[in-house]
């Protein structure tokens, strides 16, 4: 009773969520177009995004976990000093 097994058939999942995620994909496409129309070069965040996108279509499972990992700091030691308080969403040393 306490388990939450996946109940919905795939067609229902698609019915419920397709339009929302179609829109998100177009947002990503428009964001990349917008960046490329703007003067300047990619920074580490945009490079991280470009690295993550192919994971969507590599046919392997656990895409969300693997994309989160691709944005993550892979080191394991504490850093000497906090450079500030914020996080940017991608590891600057990753590219």
């Amino acid at each position: 009773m306490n388990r939450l097994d996946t109940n919905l058939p795939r067609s229902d999942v698609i019915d419920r969520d397709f339009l929302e995620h179609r829109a998100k994909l177009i947002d990503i496409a428009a964001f990349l177009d917008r960046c490329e129309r703007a003067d300047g070069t990619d920074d580490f965040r945009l490079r991280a995004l470009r690295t993550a996108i192919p994971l969507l279509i590599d046919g392997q499972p656990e895409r969300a976990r693997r994309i989160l990992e691709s944005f993550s700091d892979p080191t394991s030691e504490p850093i000497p000093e906090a450079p500030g308080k914020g996080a940017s969403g991608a590891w600057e040393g990753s590219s």
Partner: protein
Amino acid sequence: MRYIDPHAHMVSRTTDDYEKMALAGCRALTEPAFWAGYDRCSAEGFRDYFNQLTSIEPARARTYGIHHFTWLCINPKEAEDVGFAREVMQVIPEFLAKGNVLGIGEIGLNKNSKNELRVLEEHLEIAAQHQSLVLVHTPHLEDKQKGTRLIMEAVRNQPSIDPGRVLIDHVEEHTVKEVLDGGFWGGMTLYPDTKCTAKRAADILETCGTERLWMNSACDWGVSNPLSVPTAALELRARGHHPEAIDHVIFKNPMAFLKQAPAFAKRAEAIDVGHPPE
């Protein structure tokens, strides 16, 4: 529907939010001490804050029939100055016996620095000395996975703290399994842009199971939604999940963890049957 929001920064919310949460079925909430959006300039500023968390907020919550509990600490965003953090940590024991205090939280790491880690370890010592429950904040975004691992190691280095009495919050797809495999509890924070959406939280519950997991809004002064827990419950209902299984996640799970704190255990029955706070 009844639910517990185990992570809500109500000092940053309006009274209207208390009303909306009560209308949605919120029976109890727990409020960890956190960063105010600016660094406080003295330990006395924290004393004022701890007073607010232990007397003012419970009274506001009571107006809407919601049981209010809290956790005390200096948060990791203000932990880079170890000397200052120690001044604040000296104030904490004065408040631990207040009627709504559950333990130490939300401690943890922010940028995974050496000083943050030292302050985390000293907080864990306070928790060990007072046999308190612990609520842990894990870092944001790119720092989360590394920070979560450092935090779990720090807790393991404190053998008198049972991982079953430690809730590691803000888990996502890349940290949830390690947290649960380590015997800890995991919290999923429902945020629109960062952390987890309601749909992803539902996915995690479907794939990782419902044991030792809870959901919270972590509503604060930033982009957040105080109704995100009932919103996620609605997502689970729309996926066809049984109401009892949903109740297990949004009510019974937080009850089971929080009841380990004597301050919560005393009121657990009232919360279970829906009596307002006295």
